[in-house]
């Protein structure tokens, strides 16, 4: 039986009706992997034995008539920057190529409590710094819709796995667009929740005030189910938001009547591909036809988001990545003359070009004499960017925008010019700076490549995103299309 087109909630139905077993689902994923993974290369590490053992325990409990959590037996992929106890966690970096965490990230523990079946750990740009997976120290993941193109990044492996069918759901992390941008380029649903909704404990830190974990899924029902599983306060992350959260599946309503949707004009001009623009406008008319009010609005400081982000994120990264010194974990270079020499040798050999570039940039922006001009200035502009959104949300329930300026680009197209690569995230960065929830969903196709549209919500307004996204998917069906990959039966 072919499972790789199905969603988690559909598989759940088959499992409960005993029309299949968790082991059968798991085997079908590894059969598919045998056929397509050579072409796609979504995973850094596969855990076949662990996955099958987990699936067997789910089947045993099903046979015994025990009640199982909503995601029990569902094949999951985890981005390789989240700690998995006893399973290699590399962050796509040579410096962590042998790192086996002695503990689980909170999200991994929560998925374990759901009894999901973890297939493996997915590829990413080194330490999540990049927009294509080309900055992974190991290999570049391919876009399942066209293997000459990038899957996006940094969570490109997770997005490609869900699109290809080698996972049903996946987790990614999003610091400036690293969930939404690859979700757009691979034609799946990818949500970055509000900063603080999901615990970051055990997520290897890149830029701590911006990082947030979120789901990749094939539709909004699965998105709500994964959010339910991973969200909520965690005392091990002091920035995790306190308070009770409801059931996100309550927002899966096929109705947007009365919703007020703003379209920031700054997101529809400039370097935006004409075809992508058309798809965003088509989405706007879908929402209008379904009874929402759609109106143009403005976020006047939009052009400043990119330079603001590329000061703040590298500054935080330069501090966070100071811990890779060859002492406590990771790789160390031998034959050093003293401890400083050992630090410098280990870091220089362990980090790739993009990571070094960002450490250099961040160190400079924080250094004596430049702190006020660069870092502090960026923090102040961050306030202005945030206020833009606050003003827009006085009038609107959510904002509609493109996720990316263009479809998936060819491998090698942007690796020589860092600013060109950074521009891939031009429509996603501001959401992280403001700490808001954002989701990319399949909005249509251009030359057989998927195009994502982005919905941006108020803080802790994931419910409005789920309701609008669910209504859009019920009205269009773009999310039902699947790529066909060479080698696939």
């Amino acid at each position, binding site marked *: 039986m072919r499972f790789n087109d199905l969603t988690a909630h559909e598989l759940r139905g088959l499992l409960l009706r005993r029309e299949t077993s968790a082991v059968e689902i798991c085997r079908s994923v590894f059969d598919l992997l045998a056929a397509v993974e050579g072409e796609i290369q979504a995973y850094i590490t596969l855990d076949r034995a662990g996955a099958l053992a987990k699936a067997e325990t789910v089947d045993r409990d099903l046979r015994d008539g025990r009640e199982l959590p909503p995601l029990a037996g569902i094949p999951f992929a985890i981005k390789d920057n989240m700690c998995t106890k006893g399973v290699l966690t590399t962050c796509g970096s040579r410096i962590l190529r042998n790192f086996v965490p002695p503990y689980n990230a909170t999200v991994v523990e929560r998925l374990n409590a759901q009894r999901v079946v973890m297939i493996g750990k997915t590829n990413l740009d080194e330490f999540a710094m990049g927009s294509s997976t080309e900055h992974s120290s190991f290999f570049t993941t391919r876009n399942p819709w066209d293997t000459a193109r990038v899957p996006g990044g940094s969570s490109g492996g997770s997005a490609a796995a869900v699109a290809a069918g080698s996972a049903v759901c996946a987790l990614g992390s999003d610091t400036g667009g690293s969930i939404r941008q690859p979700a757009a380029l691979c034609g799946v649903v990818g949500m970055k929740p509000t900063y603080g909704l999901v615990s970051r404990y055990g997520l290897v830190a890149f830029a701590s005030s911006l990082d947030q974990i979120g789901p990749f899924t094939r539709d909004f029902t699965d998105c709500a189910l994964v959010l339910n599983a991973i969200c909520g306060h965690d005392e091990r992350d002091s*920035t995790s938001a306190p308070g009770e959260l409801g059931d996100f599946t309550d927002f899966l309503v096929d109705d947007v009547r009365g919703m007020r949707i703003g379209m920031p004009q700054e997101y529809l001009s400039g370097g935006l591909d004409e075809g992508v623009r058309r798809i965003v406008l088509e989405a706007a008319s879908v929402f209008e036809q379904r009874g929402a009010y759609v109106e143009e609005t403005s976020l006047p400081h939009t052009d400043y988001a990119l330079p603001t982000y590329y000061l703040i994120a590298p500054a935080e990264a330069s501090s966070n990545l100071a811990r890779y010194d060859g002492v406590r974990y990771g790789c160390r270079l031998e034959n050093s003359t*003293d401890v400083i020499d050992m630090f410098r040798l280990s870091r220089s050999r362990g980090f790739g070009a993009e990571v070094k570039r960002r450490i250099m940039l961040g*160190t400079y922006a924080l250094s004596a004499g430049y702190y006020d001009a660069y870092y502090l200035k960026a923090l102040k502009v961050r306030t202005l960017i945030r206020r833009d959104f606050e003003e827009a949300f006085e009038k609107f329930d959510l904002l509609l925008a493109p996720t990316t300026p263009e479809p998936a680009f060819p491998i090698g197209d942007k690796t020589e010019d860092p600013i060109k690569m950074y521009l891939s995230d031009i429509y996603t960065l501001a959401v992280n700076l403001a700490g808001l929830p954002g989701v990319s969903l399949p909005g249509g196709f251009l030359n057989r490549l998927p195009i994502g549209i982005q919905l941006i919500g108020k803080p802790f307004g994931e419910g409005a995103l789920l309701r609008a996204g669910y209504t859009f998917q019920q009205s269009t069906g773009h999310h039902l299309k699947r790529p066909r990959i060479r080698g696939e039966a």
Partner: protein
Amino acid sequence: MLTKSQVEHVALLARLYLDDEEKERYTTQLTKILEYARNLDELNTSDVPPTAHVLPLQNVFRQDVVGPHLPAEEAIGNSPEQEDGFFKVPRVL
């Protein structure tokens, strides 16, 4: 415009070694990125408070009691060199 000696100084602060080719490349690229960042100077921010963090949280404390924790040997198990339960490093002085 960043100079090569500034790049060398930043590399020391960042505990990196750069070869000549990297020094040249980063001098050019960082200059370009920093020039781009100067766009922010168009904005008057004299009365704007900085945002380091979006959440209205301050001083999150927990009870000062020992909770579950990793055994020491597991906690240091990933270190490249150990001795008697300690991290081992090359000479410091």
